[in-house]
């Protein structure tokens, strides 16, 4: 096997190998068992005292959500104003300007919701102060919010009947102190020793070997990259994200970053198994998600390694596959692998540019985000999967001749209503957004906006359509990657994706928690031979089928007009 393939196979195996003990540890942390990080106890108590929080107060699902939404609102206001006035604040060694209100709105939301769409470029759009005090801060807390939401849901599943989802503050703070900080420190140190800068020094002006004068952007990158991946955020320090040689200096760091972004999402699945004491269920979920990932990954790796057929026609050699937008030190296999994991788990960081991926790869990346539940983002991945489970439970419950139930609770009209709403939302936001954008491009290309719709697209035809589709899909999935050719830093895109981001973040969190809370309140029904086993392989297949069908039904026409049309065009 060539070294590129072994690289990605081993990356995946290492991820699972590390995720398993981490999952066990996470379950222990939230069970309140003794762990080696108990030395954090005094720090946590200190945080709670300073914040005036009683960490032992029980919360029902409504209280849990209120606490979560309130603090998110505080962060949004804080981030918005910091970005707006960053030029007037210290720690701006490169003298970058303040963000426009629409960009600031988009950036604040984007980082708040763990998306990191980044309509600015890191070197010029933000300052060291806002990069650390706003963006990196939000990368921590948005990841912790997602994990806390999942733990809240699991608290509901864990007990037979309860209205206590746990204390949001306590779960949230422990996520930061026990999971994110320790892992980030380890990863940041690895990054630093492999050449990522850590200091606060600004641009360095040097004379190159052949005599050009060039400035080199720098900054405290290593710590930022750590949380960017561990928290499935994906927002890069530099404009080109992890393709940038200071943000991802070599193949080792590339492996570390690939592993880091998948680590917590996978670990959360194992943690779930231990935490709710249904290990088989967790393994089946993991299995389904892994198969889903492979279905997207394998075609992508194969196409990228085969190179661009249009370039092949020119008669040059493509021994390393398609290279446009890719870095030599990673190669197309690792780039393809990254492009899939980053889209399925809502990281959205890139080490190659998806706009230049082959049409098939583009379709796979889009599908990864449309499903958004093959592993998925920190905590929220399973929340999305949970919605698919509810629908699968409903249909397959009927097929075994019982009114549907999940983990001992009857799934009835109210839960179905919420689940259906959440499912509809992504179709509505993605297709609605793209329809609006396509409308302007088709009918008002020269409308008197700062950036005319005719200038939005970096590529013509189907690929241009894919750029718009990708942007809204990415926003809806809270992913943050882009077909970066799209001219997205203007009022239309900043505002429209801003709203998509915020709705697509919080409704898919509120929905599952509400369902979980309502179900947990219901009478517990013990299992019998007639009960649908949700931890069986058959049910796993059913869930997979539901995911495939819902995604296909929602997005088939859009994919047809974008990547599929482009693919078939090449084929001719």
């Amino acid at each position, binding site marked *: 096997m060539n070294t590129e393939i072994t690289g990605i196979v081993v990356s995946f195996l290492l991820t699972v190998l590390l995720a398993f003990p981490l999952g066990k540890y996470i379950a222990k942390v939230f069970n309140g068992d003794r762990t080696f990080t108990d030395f954090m106890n005094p720090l946590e108590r200190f945080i709670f005292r300073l914040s005036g929080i009683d960490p032992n107060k029980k919360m029902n699902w409504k209280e849990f959500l209120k606490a979560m939404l309130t603090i998110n609102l505080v962060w949004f206001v804080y981030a918005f104003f910091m970005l707006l006035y960053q030029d007037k604040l210290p720690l701006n060694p490169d003298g970058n300007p303040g963000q426009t209100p629409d960009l600031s709105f988009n950036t604040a939301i984007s980082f708040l919701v763990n998306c990191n769409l980044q309509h600015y470029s890191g070197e010029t759009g933000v300052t060291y102060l806002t990069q650390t005090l706003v963006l990196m801060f939000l990368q921590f807390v948005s990841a912790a919010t997602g994990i806390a939401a999942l733990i809240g849901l699991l608290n509901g599943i864990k007990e037979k009947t309860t209205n206590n989802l746990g204390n949001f503050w306590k779960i949230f703070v422990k996520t930061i102190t026990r999971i994110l900080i320790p892992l980030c420190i380890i990863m940041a140190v690895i990054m630093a020793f492999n050449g990522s800068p850590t200091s606060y020094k600004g641009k360095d002006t040097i004379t190159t070997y052949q005599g050009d004068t060039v400035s080199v952007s720098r900054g405290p990158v290593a710590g930022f990259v750590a949380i960017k991946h561990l928290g499935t955020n994906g927002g890069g320090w530099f404009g080109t994200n992890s393709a940038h040689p200071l943000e991802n200096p070599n193949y080792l760091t590339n492996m570390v970053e690939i592993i880091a972004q998948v680590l917590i999402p996978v670990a959360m699945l194992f943690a779930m198994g231990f935490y709710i004491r249904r290990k088989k269920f967790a393994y089946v979920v993991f299995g389904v998600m892994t198969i889903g990932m492979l279905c997207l990954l394998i075609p992508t790796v194969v196409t990228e390694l085969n190179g661009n057929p249009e370039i092949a026609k020119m008669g040059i050699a493509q021994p390393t596959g398609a290279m446009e937008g890719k870095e030599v030190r990673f190669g197309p296999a690792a780039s393809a692998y990254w492009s899939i994991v980053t889209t399925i788990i809502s990281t959205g960081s890139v080490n190659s540019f998806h706009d230049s991926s082959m049409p098939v790869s583009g379709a796979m990346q889009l599908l990864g985000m449309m499903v958004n539940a093959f592993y998925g983002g920190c905590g929220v991945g399973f929340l999305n999967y949970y919605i698919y489970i509810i629908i699968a439970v409903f249909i397959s419950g009927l097929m075994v001749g019982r*009114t549907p139930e999940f983990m001992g609770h009857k799934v009835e009209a109210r839960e179905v209503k919420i689940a259906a709403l959440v499912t509809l939302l992504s179709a509505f936001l993605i297709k609605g957004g*793209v329809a609006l954008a396509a409308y302007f491009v088709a009918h008002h290309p020269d409308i008197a906006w700062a950036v005319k719709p005719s200038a939005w697209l970096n590529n013509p035809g189907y690929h241009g359509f894919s750029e718009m589709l990708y942007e809204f899909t990415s926003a809806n999935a809270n992913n943050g990657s882009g077909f970066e050719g799209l001219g997205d830093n203007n009022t239309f895109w900043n505002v429209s994706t801003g709203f998509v981001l915020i709705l697509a973040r919080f409704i898919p969190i509120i929905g599952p928690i509400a369902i979980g809370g309502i179900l947990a309140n219901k009478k517990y029904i013990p299992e019998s*031979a007639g009960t649908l086993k949700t931890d069986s392989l058959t049910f796993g297949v059913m869930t997979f089928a539901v995911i495939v069908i819902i995604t296909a039904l929602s997005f088939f026409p859009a994919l047809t007009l974008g990547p599929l049309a482009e693919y078939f065009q090449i084929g001719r």
Partner: protein
Amino acid sequence: MKRSKNTSSLLSKELVAPALAQSFVKLDPRMMYRNPVMFTVEIGTTIMLFITAYSYSANDKSVGNFGYNLTIFTVLFLTLLFANFAEAIAEARGKAQADSLRKTREDTPAKKVSAVGEIFTNEIHIVPSSKLRKGDMFICEAGDIIPMDGEIIQGLATIDESAITGESAPVIREAGGDKSSVTGGTKVLSDKIKVRVTTEPGESFLDKMIALVEGASRQKTPNEIALTILLASFTLLFIIVCVTLKPFADYANTTITIAAFISLFVCLIPTTIGGLLSAIGIAGMDRALRANVITKSGKAVETAGDIDTLLLDKTGTITIGNRKATHFWPAKNIDSKTFVEACVLASLADETPEGKSIIELANINGASFNTRDAKFVGFTAETRSSGIDMPNGIRIRKGAFDSIRNIVVRAGNSIPSETELKVKEIASNGGTPLVVSQNQQAIGVIELQDIIKPGIQERFERLRKMGVKTVMVTGDNPLTAKYIAEKAGVDDYIAEAKPEDKMNYIKKEQAGGKLVAMMGDGTNDAPALAQADVGVAMNSGTQAAKEAGNMVDLDNDPTKLIEIVEIGKQLLITRGTITTFSIANDVAKYFAIVPALFISSIPALQALNIMHLKSPESAILSAVIFNAIIIPLLIPLSLRGVAYRPIGASALLRRNLMIYGVGGVIAPFIGIKIIDMILGLFF
């Protein structure tokens, strides 16, 4: 059990004609809006009607040609009619079934009497049964048809209930106790009874059931509501898909006709399950009725599918009627023939089934004994034994072990140890020992055994595979109960059961989150029937019991519970599988329509036309036609229900997923291709 009615064909002529008429009546939007999926189809069809009219009058190319629009409109209209027809035919079948039950009691002359006084002195007024009100009294004598449901307050009669139950053997009903109910339409064979009317006309259970089947007062069950929400959200999803397709097409410089948009939309929304959903629900109640069970709500049928625990009376359900003598065990030194004769003598006057069974077993003609001067000693609560005093001074007694021991010991004799051993052995085998004494000497033991119904073990095994726990309720002592429970294969038993024990057991199970079904007939069963999630009252039972339960079994057959559970499961499975089928169909429809929409401007998409449909127009038309005809094709399945197989939940899911999921993906590919080929012959 009556099976003759059940064999009637699904679509008999007399049902189809009115159902066809109903299909048009149901087009009324005020009725249609209750079904969101089909309501949107109706809106689409209406728009299509205008488009068709417009394309005829104006010569506007952008809306497509008139003939094509008219065809699409016709197919859409048929889709609506098919869906309505499914509902109408289900209603018609349910109503026909109920009507045939009701017909028997219409306008029967009733012998009304005044509310007080003795039977024989009252003046009788002949009034039509429809004039009877709740609380009125009437008299029925041999040969009369009972005009109305009621409760016997005086007298006893044998009644032929075959009109209702199909069971030809007459039954005895008498005042007081648990067998006091009579049903309108049944016939009194002997004696004379005085009956109080218990229901207002039009409010009998049958009337309520008919109302449930008919559209007006039919309420959606909780699960039906949840499914409707899911289907409505799928409909919304496809509204989004179709609306956004317009600007997408604009971007791609493609014009899509309104006919194509509406066709795409109607094909994608789950019209199959949307059109059949209410028919499936009605058919569920109808199937219950065909099993001679009147359900008081659709919800009860649905709940039956979820039952975790079944409470079954031992007698009549698990065992055939009463105990029977199975063996004579003479004591040592007693001649077998002598013992048997003694047993027969002791039982000659015993009219209980047990007594009769002793004579049967002995196979001796009782009349051969000379008992002219003998004195029969009946069973009393005091002596708890019965027997005979022969003229020659021989006194034979038979009874429970304790009572005979008393007699023997009081006379200074002792019970032989082998007799005592035998008594214990029989008891531990689930039998009932009757000890026989002759002149205060124990001479042997008669063994009585419960006869377990043939095939009952298999039924319990089937229930166990469904995940249903069976509980036997019996008045027997725990030892006997345990033996029978094991032999019959039930999971648990309540021995020496008192009515409150049933209630407590139900409450205990429910506290553990389980759903419990039980069957009962007596007044003292009423609280438990009300407490149970599915309470089936026997039609012969008291009015109180019938009011308390949520189903009434006209056959008074205790094994009916098992059937009811299966009917419930069948209902849910049918819903689930047709939903799956309906949604799985969309995959093929996408492959038919989406390439058709864009092929003119993006020729590369020909690759997606994997069915190689002839032209975009015929592709769309084929998909719409397939979408329409699949509804009538599935009507028989909806009415009959998808068979339930107790093979475990996962295996059942796998099976149904393969047939209706995978099949649902494949079938339309084949169907649409065939239709396209047929259309190709015409165009």
